[in-house]
């Protein structure tokens, strides 16, 4: 295409002006501002914990919960140990009543 020939699109592009603002621009702008303010106002984890633990009731509840969790975990461990001990006692009882099992290399498998 030579320089003298004019592209039909040029006329259209010359007529093109800036895009009109959307109808609800106010609402969009205010929503963005509110979102930014909310982000700035949201405290981090540590300040939240600080705020919660400043109440003595929450602090007490936290300590009691820690103690209860400790007790619960210990109970789980104790019940597991008791199961293992019962299995061990079963095996040793079988050895006690059967001299053949007292010899090395012979072990019951209950």
């Amino acid at each position, binding site marked *: 295409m030579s320089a003298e020939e004019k592209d039909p699109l040029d006329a259209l592009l010359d007529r093109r002006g800036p895009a009109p603002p959307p109808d609800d621009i106010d609402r969009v702008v205010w929503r963005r501002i509110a979102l930014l303010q909310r982000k700035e106002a949201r405290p981090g984890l540590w300040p939240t914990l600080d705020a919660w*633990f400043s109440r003595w009731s929450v602090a007490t509840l936290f300590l009691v919960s*820690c103690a209860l969790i400790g007790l619960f975990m*210990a109970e789980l461990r104790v019940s597991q140990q008791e199961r293992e001990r019962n299995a061990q006692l079963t095996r040793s009882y079988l050895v*006690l009543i059967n*001299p053949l099992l*007292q010899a*090395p290399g*012979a072990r*019951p498998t209950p």
Partner: protein
Amino acid sequence: MKRTLILLLLGLAVGTGSYRLQLHFRATPESASLDHHLAWMKAELNVSDEQLARLRELHEASEPQMRLLASKVIQLQGELAAFEQTRRAAGEVDFMELGRFVEIRRNVYQECLVSTRQLVVASAALMTPAQRRHYLALVAPSMAAEVSPPM
């Protein structure tokens, strides 16, 4: 901030402390004595004090013989290992000696079988049907070991 940190550390200490204390107070001593086995039977089979006293008598009465038989079994295993070592070293076996050994071992195993069965049957006779079923299920592996002795 400092208060929160102290509280978190205190919570960790309280949790760990309660865990360790509970484990300490609930721990049971490890032992394989007859008393522990009887206590285990009482808990496992739910036997009465009277049944437990009879079970104790039975087990205490059989204990010396069981020990004697166990020492015989261990001695026989040693002899068998010696036979195997001689066979590997010299490449020959004294069949007369081996035959004598097999005969003795058969008798000892038979004694073990009879002793264990007597104890199990006598113990089971003291129990209720439900206890007996549970007891026999528990000692079944021991009886199976008698059926197929090593070698």
